[in-house]
């Protein structure tokens, strides 16, 4: 097995009396597509928040690329190569799709304190941004304001933004939620192509997509990881079947 890119050690978090993350330890090797599944309210989004730095952990450690990043904030983790999408779409509605992505390119290009020169006209930023848009199938919509895109297109845009930061690890919180059939097929296709470039940690309710994409799957129930294994192992794990998966979805 290759060295772990992401390692969670005994992560905990609670909101008041509610324990949302309960002693989660997990290791994701480089190059893996790892899916986290679990019923609504299991704490999946919270876990992604803790990994990305949006929400602090009660205790435990997050190691990324061999370094302890538990104390780092969202933007610092992003700079180290941790990109994420949000369950509730988060884009810049007043910017064109292209500018949304170009800003992510700008973020990794370093020099954002330039006070002169029209950023919207820089080929060095727009070129790579356009490539990302084309990759997710939004090339023809590059000039549309992000706020005016359809829900599914916004999900695709979020993926393009995350890709533009050239992440080592992509954290995706239900990238298929709310997408139409065609869009969802396309996103799955994109993710399939990405697996050679980056490691992916994915939350998704679409079981068909999860079982076809993931190298390994972890099952989160009430904040606890009850199982981690290959799709085949998960499919036949009785505890998982009992706790979460309906028989018809397992078929």
């Amino acid at each position, binding site marked *: 097995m290759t060295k772990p890119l992401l390692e969670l050690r005994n992560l905990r978090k609670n909101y008041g009396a509610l324990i949302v993350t309960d002693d989660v330890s997990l290791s994701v090797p480089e190059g893996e597509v790892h899916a986290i599944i679990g019923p609504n309210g299991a704490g999946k989004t919270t876990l992604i928040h803790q990994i990305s730095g*949006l929400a602090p952990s009660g205790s435990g450690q997050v190691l990324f690329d061999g370094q302890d990043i538990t104390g780092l904030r969202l933007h610092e983790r992003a700079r180290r190569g941790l990109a994420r999408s949000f369950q509730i779409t988060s*884009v810049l509605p007043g910017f064109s799709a292209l500018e949304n992505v170009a800003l992510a390119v700008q973020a990794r290009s370093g020099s*954002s304190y330039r*006070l002169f020169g029209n*950023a919207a006209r820089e080929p060095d930023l727009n070129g790579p941004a356009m490539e990302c848009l084309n990759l997710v199938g939004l090339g023809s919509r590059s000039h549309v304001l992000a706020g005016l895109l359809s829900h599914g297109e916004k999900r695709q845009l979020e993926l393009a933004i995350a890709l533009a*930061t050239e992440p080592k690890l992509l954290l995706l919180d239900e990238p298929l939620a709310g997408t139409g059939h065609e869009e969802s097929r396309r996103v799955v296709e994109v993710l399939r192509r990405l697996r050679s470039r980056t490691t992916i940690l994915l939350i998704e309710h679409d079981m068909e997509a999860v079982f076809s994409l993931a190298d390994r799957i972890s099952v989160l129930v009430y904040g606890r990881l009850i199982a981690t294994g290959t799709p085949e192992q998960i499919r036949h794990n009785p505890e998982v079947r009992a706790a979460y998966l309906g028989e018809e979805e397992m078929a």
Partner: protein
Amino acid sequence: MTDIARMQSASIVPPAPRIERVPLILFGALAIAPFLAALSGAEGYVLSLLCRVMIFGLAALSLDLILGYGALVSFGHAAFLGIGGYAVGILASHGMEDALVQIPVALAASGLFAAITGTISLRTKGVYFIMITLAFGQMLFFLATSLAAYGGDDGLTLPSRSLLAGTTILKNDRVFYGFCFICLLGVYVLAREIVSSRFGRVLRGAKENPTRMEAIGFHPFRFQLLAYVISGMMAGLAGVLLANQAEFISPSFMTWQRSGELIFMVVLGGLGSLHGAIVGAAAFLLLEEFLPEILHLASFMLSSDLQSRLVENWKMVFGPVLILIVLFVRGGIMGLVPGGRHD
């Protein structure tokens, strides 16, 4: 890149911005105004009024940079007018009367004050940010009232306008007008550059969705702080001009009401267009100046007693008029002008 990608990237550079009408008309009007003023028979009065318009336009524009593009509601912006003004007054009273000394000192002092207060206030959000900027503004106001050596409460009359490279040309009202015009135009062009630059784009992004910006690796705080410092320095320059225009400085430069008026000017003109702030300042000051006359004319059918009372209490009309504009004209005055907004 695939062929399709190449085809599309050919069209991704947006078309060159067309020359915008509103700023062109605005600055054109300000450029020819002194010539018309010379014909008006009240040149001194017209020039001085228009200088005030430009100076407050400059201050409002500096506020628009952080308010309209960064959603930072600074309720203490008049403090920078005060810093600029007192830089002139204090330096002049120690014999340093040249604008070439006073302006850099004013800019440095404004920038420093902005850096210190911004570092603290930008850690808060929303109403807390408004309150803490107000508090810093008030702090400076009370500091000024306690400067007994420089007039305390009463302020300080300047011996004359600042020198410019050792010459007294700013004493000429037309030259001073030109000086204000150049400052305003220069700052406007600079601000336009800034908002479309890489830096400005991050600032605008952080206004729309700070979490999104952090998720791609930006720390909005640093960008907002730099914007705050730049904005404060611009307002400091306006303070230098204001002291020269009034040939007087006093704590009244930086009352919280003044800060409120600046916010009002920006909202009145229309947030986030820069020239809107100048238009807002002009509308505000001209209304303030001419509303009594307008009321007098408009109320001709009333008895002369009622008429004079209405004119006396013109401020009772001024407030509601401003509020109505802000309420019913979305996007301020710029919202009325076709193509008045460019974002």
